[in-house]
């Protein structure tokens, strides 16, 4: 309460009481004291002008046997506990050093219960005057454990401070929100501080997890401003594709359901990334994150924790906090495209053979060459042709120069901008604390007329109602609105389809007026191929809107029966309501008559749980902790869609304007899981820790309409941690050594309801019904995953170097799968418990502090993770499981191989591996598919560093992956249309492909046949069917984050009346090293309700972003 209430008072030799009354009057503070307290007080004289209440009180108390405290504008005056004795006042001299004897400069030395304090000088020495002979000194230094030193009449002392191996005793949040000392854990966890997420913010805060957690893999949709990510910990194990880590915000499991979508490749609809409940969380509200990587850690989350969990704790008000507790944070981020395909701008529009003339519509120069999307045409050589005239929207009357528009693709895109402003108020006292945050985000994205606005309100309140009862609540409410989010994929409703189709001799400005004058809303301008929608029409008229409200919150009551026994009861909810709409004007390729559709989505999960904790006091060397809990969860999802796929009048987007009957589609999905669980923890002398957990779930997903026989399943886990550095005497270089081991089993029932009952599906026909394509399984059993994990946590050189290493081995069996069967059986699949998938891997994380002085600190940080996956078995009848199909080629799980292997047709090759060409000089394709690489990386690694010099801080993070490949459809489409530089050789003299010809006798000779048709030559090489030629390595190294901060020094803060203030500049994804032929090797493709690896289908450009961050509090 350094609140500047100015006090002006002048009295001589007066009693305290009237002075207090006057101060109370001026400050508005109340005084609270027992009349007896002031009885023995000395009279005082005071003469102050415009001082703080503290200063005034200080004068009043001088030499008095009284003390005071201020709490909530109440000044409490008490008798001093230890009455001031008139003891001898000494002058104390001393030195403060660390354990190695190095003097600590600037350490603070305070006489306990007084204001008498000094800091050590450059030699680590200090001198304190006027110290009572029985006083106690408190010596503290940042990064070291504070120490209390009783003087015991000595007047020369040497204090050795122990380094604060903070991490060793760091308390972390584990499953179910249970707080533990990190050293007691038998499994690997990674903790991320909220501020580390803010270093280089992006629209989806989960981007900030990249490179910070060993074993975390992110599949990014890159599908627009909302940019959903799929987070995978320790590799994929579920054949059905549900591998996402569980995300828990303040105990609320948040839906990661992405979107109801379609295929990205020439689907009848194009998927749109509307974001999800996770990406919409406001990172400003995150206090810290604990990543529980394996089921050992997350077993208590049960059936959904098998893929690991990300536990998010949002910020709360702090009790007894200094200052007003108002803080303000502002970010401005600009993003530009960081990488482009290698476009050629040497040859213009033209189909095969149209390489000697150009003519917009038929002229005396030749037949029209305007309608092709290919660039096999004439070289730009200073000549003139009849071309498109934007003024008349048809052929120009005169020949104009034949020139390329080298920036036509670049000029379409804009600089993305995101502005985030966040204001929070927090405060608290011993009983209550509260925090309220409001954040506004405004985004415009690289595609014109796309972006979104988001407002978030977060409230956290905690009240100690009595000594025993605490009630707390956290609520996160957010509202997101977008007028337009871009359609993704390769299809004529997508921007990237138009960009790929753009020819080198087209000026993007010709597209800007997208309606034919006089036919607005009826006929679009598309100067070249009439099959491709005008990109500006797509951006400004083919809209995908969304309005979404989400509430994630909980209310918790904790009751401490005794010191040993407490009970927590909590109710939490994740609710969202979203209204989406799509509209297409008339004359768009897919919807010639226009279209209007809406989807209303309701999604809710309510969970009520309790946890009873018993912590008996046994003895000093042995402690135990028992918890017993239970939860009841219900999940409901409902989607109602209305479709008007042809409109009567142009530009009116209502259902009243439908040409046909409006088609309604509705889908529901409900499930419930009840659980009971127990946890027993034992610790021995801070050396050995042993935990057991046991959980039983009752899941409705395994019930049938007449049986609940299979709904119950139980699974255990056991974790062991041994702090060897406490057990044995280790060399002094080893500051800490811990071994850990854990075994965990998790049972699961998936999240897809109705697999146990056979139901006829409705059809689009009235009174229509059809058999489902899958055979239901009334005897479905839970799936099981078993994981064994061991690890070591070692720290050396006074914890200046830390290494954490884990090894894990997991088997996932009895997966609930739609197992494909021969369609001749009458169905395409049967729901079965099948398959055994094994994952083995290592993870390592290194932290180091190479330099640490008072003014300069250098930290380094690195991660490494490798996962090996084996499909041990599948259902009896199959030896391969097609996980997904690309435009061409498939991603499969074959028995004995790894999940995520890509197969497709490739080049026919001679025995020595050379490409075989046919008699016309074109490459020959195989008839059978072959293995072409793996979509999952062999390893991922990251390296980061962080420098602090006085008020400055600089930071960077690099990460990368190695060993994976993916198919690029952007490459297919650009290469076969002659738009990449690699298609230049051979124009127009023909080319001899690098490879061999087969002789009549079966032997081979070097290829000697000139392929004369260049378009056919490159088409045969790069057509989609040739999956091999379009599969590229997705290895990359990225400069992921960089940031420089300046923290205002204390002096300046004081002058400005601030508590803290910081200004920072940052960048994300600044540089990339990669051989990927399109934009970004790090991608996912939005499919139906999933983000998939392996097949890039018309990806959007990726961006490099720069930002400025201001934050201050007062």
């Amino acid at each position, binding site marked *: 309460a350094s609140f500047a209430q100015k006090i002006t008072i002048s009295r001589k030799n007066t009693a305290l009481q009237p002075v207090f009354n006057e101060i109370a009057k001026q400050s508005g503070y109340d005084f609270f004291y027992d009349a007896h307290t002031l009885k023995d007080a000395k009279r005082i004289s005071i003469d102050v002008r415009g001082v703080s209440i503290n200063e005034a009180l200080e004068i009043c108390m001088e030499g008095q046997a009284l003390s005071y405290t201020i709490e909530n504008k109440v000044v409490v005056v008490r008798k001093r506990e230890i009455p001031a004795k008139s003891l001898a006042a000494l002058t104390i001299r001393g030195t403060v050093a660390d354990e190695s004897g190095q003097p600590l400069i600037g350490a603070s030395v305070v006489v306990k219960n007084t204001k008498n304090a000094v800091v050590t000088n450059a030699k680590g020495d200090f001198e304190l005057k006027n110290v009572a002979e029985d006083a106690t000194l408190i010596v503290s230094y940042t990064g070291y454990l504070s120490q209390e030193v009783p003087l015991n009449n000595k007047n020369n002392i040497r204090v050795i401070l122990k380094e604060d191996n903070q991490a060793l005793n760091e308390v972390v949040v584990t499953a179910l929100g249970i707080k533990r000392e990190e050293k007691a854990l038998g499994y690997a966890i990674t903790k991320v501080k909220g501020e580390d997420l803010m270093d280089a913010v992006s629209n989806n805060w989960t981007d900030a997890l990249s490179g910070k957690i060993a074993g975390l893999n992110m599949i990014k949709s890159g599908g627009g401003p909302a940019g959903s990510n799929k987070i995978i910990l320790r590799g994929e194990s579920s054949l059905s594709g549900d591998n996402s880590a569980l995300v828990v915000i303040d105990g609320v499991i948040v839906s990661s359901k992405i979107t109801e979508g379609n295929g990205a490749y020439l689907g009848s609809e194009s998927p749109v990334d509307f974001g999800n409940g996770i990406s919409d969380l406001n990172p400003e509200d995150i206090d810290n994150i604990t990543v529980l990587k394996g089921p050992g850690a997350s077993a208590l989350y049960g059936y959904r924790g098998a893929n690991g969990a990300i536990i998010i704790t949002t910020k709360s008000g702090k009790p007894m906090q200094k200052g007003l507790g108002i803080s303000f944070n502002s970010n401005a981020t600009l993003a530009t495209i960081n990488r482009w395909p290698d476009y050629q701008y040497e040859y213009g529009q033209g189909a*095969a053979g149209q390489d000697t003339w150009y003519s917009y519509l038929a002229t005396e120069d030749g037949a029209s060459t305007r309608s092709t999307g290919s660039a096999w045409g004439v070289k730009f050589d200073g000549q003139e042709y009849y071309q498109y005239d934007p003024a008349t929207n048809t052929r120009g009357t005169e020949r104009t120069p034949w020139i390329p528009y080298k920036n036509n693709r670049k000029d379409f895109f804009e600089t993305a901008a995101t502005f985030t402003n966040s204001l929070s108020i927090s405060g608290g006292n011993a009983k209550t604390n509260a925090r309220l945050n409001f954040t506004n985000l405004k985004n415009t994205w690289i595609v014109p007329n796309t972006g979104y606005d988001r407002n978030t309100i977060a409230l956290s309140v905690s009240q100690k109602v009595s000594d025993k009862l605490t009630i707390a609540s956290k609520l996160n409410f957010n509202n997101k609105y977008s007028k337009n989010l871009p359609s993704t994929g390769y299809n004529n409703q997508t921007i990237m389809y138009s960009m790929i189709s753009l020819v080198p001799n087209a000026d993007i400005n010709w597209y800007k007026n997208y309606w034919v004058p006089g036919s607005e809303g009826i006929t679009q301008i598309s100067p070249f191929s009439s*099959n491709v929608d005008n990109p500006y029409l797509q951006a400004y008229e083919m809209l995908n809107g969304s309005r979404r409200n989400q509430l994630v919150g909980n209310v918790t009551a904790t009751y401490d029966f005794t010191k040993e026994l407490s009970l927590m009861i909590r109710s939490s909810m994740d609710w969202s309501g979203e209204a989406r709409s799509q509209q297409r004007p008339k004359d768009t*390729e*897919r919807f010639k008559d226009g279209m209007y559709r809406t989807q209303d989505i309701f999604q809710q999960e309510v969970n009520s749980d309790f946890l009873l904790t018993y912590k008996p006091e046994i003895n000093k060397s042995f402690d135990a902790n028992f918890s017993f809990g239970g939860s*009841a969860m219900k999940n409901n999802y409902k989607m109602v869609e209305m479709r008007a796929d042809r409109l009567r009048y142009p530009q009116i987007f209502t259902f009243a304007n439908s*040409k*046909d009957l409006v*088609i309604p589609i*509705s*889908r*529901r999905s*409900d*499930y*419930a899981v*009840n659980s009971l669980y127990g946890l027993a923890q034992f610790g021995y002398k801070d050396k050995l820790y042993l935990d057991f957990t046991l959980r039983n779930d*009752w899941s*409705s*997903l*395994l*019930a049938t*309409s007449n049986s*609940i026989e299979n709904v119950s399943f139980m699974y255990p886990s056991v974790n062991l941690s041994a702090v060897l550095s406490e057990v044995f005497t280790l060399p002094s270089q080893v500051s800490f050594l811990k071994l850990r081991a854990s075994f965990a089993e998790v049972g699961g029932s998936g999240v897809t309801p*109705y697999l*146990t*009952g*056979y*139901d*006829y*599906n*409705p059809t*689009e*026909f009235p*009174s*229509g*019904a*059809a*058999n489902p*394509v899958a*055979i239901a399984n009334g005897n479905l059993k839970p799936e099981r995953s078993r994981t064994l994990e061991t690890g070591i946590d070692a720290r050396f050189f006074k914890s200046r170097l830390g290494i954490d290493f884990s090894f894990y081995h997991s088997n996932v069996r009895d997966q609930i799968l739609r197992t*494909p069967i*021969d*369609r*001749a*059986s*009458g*169905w*395409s699949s*049967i729901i079965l418990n099948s398959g055994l998938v094994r994952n083995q891997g290592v993870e390592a994380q290194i932290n180091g502090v190479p330099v640490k002085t008072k003014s300069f600190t250098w930290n380094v940080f690195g991660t490494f993770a490798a996962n090996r996956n084996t499909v041990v078995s599948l259902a009896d*009848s*199959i*030896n*391969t499981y097609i996980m997904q199909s690309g435009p061409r080629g498939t991603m499969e799980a074959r028995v004995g191989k790894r999940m995520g292997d890509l197969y497709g047709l490739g080049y026919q090759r001679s025995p020595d591996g050379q490409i075989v060409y046919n008699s*016309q000089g074109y490459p020959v394709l195989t*008839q059978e598919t072959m293995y072409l690489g793996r979509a999952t990386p062999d390893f991922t690694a990251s390296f980061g560093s962080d420098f602090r010099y006085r008020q400055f801080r600089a930071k960077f993070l690099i990460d990368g992956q190695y060993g994976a490949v993916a198919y690029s459809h952007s490459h297919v489409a650009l290469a076969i249309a002659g738009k990449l530089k690699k298609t230049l050789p051979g124009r127009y003299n023909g080319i001899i492909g690098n490879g061999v010809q087969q002789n009549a006798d079966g032997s081979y000779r070097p290829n000697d046949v000139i*392929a004369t*048709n260049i378009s*056919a*030559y490159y088409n045969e090489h790069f*057509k989609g*069917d040739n999956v091999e030629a379009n599969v590229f390595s997705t290895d990359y190294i990225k400069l992921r984050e960089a940031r420089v901060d300046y923290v205002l020094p204390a002096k300046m803060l004081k002058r400005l009346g601030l508590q803290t203030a910081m200004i920072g500049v940052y960048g994300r994804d600044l540089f990339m090293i990669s051989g990927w032929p399109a934009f970004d090797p790090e991608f996912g493709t939005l499919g139906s309700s999933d983000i998939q690896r392996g097949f890039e289908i018309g990806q959007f450009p990726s961006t490099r972003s720069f930002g400025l961050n201001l934050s201050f509090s007062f």
Partner: protein
Amino acid sequence: CTKEFKEINTSKNGVKNTTPETLLTSALHDVITRNLNRAMRLTNELMQVHVTTSDADEIHRYVIRPLESDYMWNNWYLQLTNFKDMYKGASVIKSNNYMGIALIMDVWVSSLITDTYGDVPYSQANQGKEQGILQPKFDSQQSIYASLFSKLEEANTRLKAATEIPDAEKGLEPLYNGDMVKWRKFGNSLYLRLLMRVSGRTELNAAAKITEIVDTRKADYPIFTSNDDSAILRFQSTPPLVSEFYNYRDLDFNSGSGLGEFFINNLNNWEDPRLEKWATKFENSYQGIKSGYPVGQVPAVKSRYSISLKNEPLLGNIMNYAELQFILAEASVRGLVSGTAQTYYENGVKAAITMWGYTVPSDYLTATTAKWDPTNNAYQMTEKIMLQKYYALFFTDFQQWFEYRRTGFPILPKGEGLQNGGQMPSRLKYPVNVQSLNSANYKEAVANMGGDDLNVKVWWNK
């Protein structure tokens, strides 16, 4: 607390039980639209109706990659489940109507499957749910046909005893709007198509059966008597009963290919009025391009499919009256039926043209190459019949290709880019995934068939 689970895990999106009439329309529509998709992709390429102008698609060169086999196998069998379920449901409520309809649909789809692949799962097929047969054994084509014929016999008997369908249900039967007499005619006409298909084999006495149906017991086997009887699922102008191509973009429908020279030239020779509905003009006339062109010599498109074909009701053809007349004409040439071949042929030609809403030009049958010549030998007569039949089968699943395999007609020109030794594929390979999903039975079937190759002849073609 688990009491509610039974209710919670009961789907709110479907229905537990249903009655037979509800299963018909969507299954029938599904098969028709799938057939159209494949007619476009495979039949019309192989049979030179159109020629793709993507060098990568080589079906017109007789290159059919293994993946092409999946689509029909995957979809036909799924719909057979619905038709068989319909029969089962109908037998429970003792409905001769729907048992008859279900049988005809079953036979139609089953015949498509066996004619496409040869020996296929049949007696154990579609029993994954009730019998738990996930790996059904393959049956010989001969035994399949024997069973199809007995099913058609049963359908004929049941439909003879058919009752009037209540008005309220008529709308659920899209083919004949509940006219059971027409269904019966359809069943027997289909019977003739299949009998003719296996008439080269003696094992099933197909020839005699044809005589019986057409002449000796014709009162017991009513067949199509006019275009009105044709089995055509007529598409409507708005969903859901629309063509496969309804939602195609125009470019997907007709920009990647041009109509074939063979297809266009015959029609030009006859000045066939159907050209107007089928093709666009190129430089003021109808012009086709060469099929089977070599790699790298992609011809420029000339005439294309008319965009109006995208939702043309007549493309919902299962079997039309004209086809039946050509079957009878061929039977007459072979002396199996008593009527004259010329009458049947000319009926067929007229029906095929009038079906499309045109009158037959006066000189069509008198002064063009379509004119019947009684002095021709049987080979020439058959060629003439089959050429007209080729056009009557426009966009009808795989029928043009099946008939070409059986008769070698019409005589298609051979492009210089043809692969596969210039030999028209005789079947599709089994789908790749059958090799893994039904491995043992697959191997046995391949051994019985004499290989799993495009050029292996099916039983009726041997």
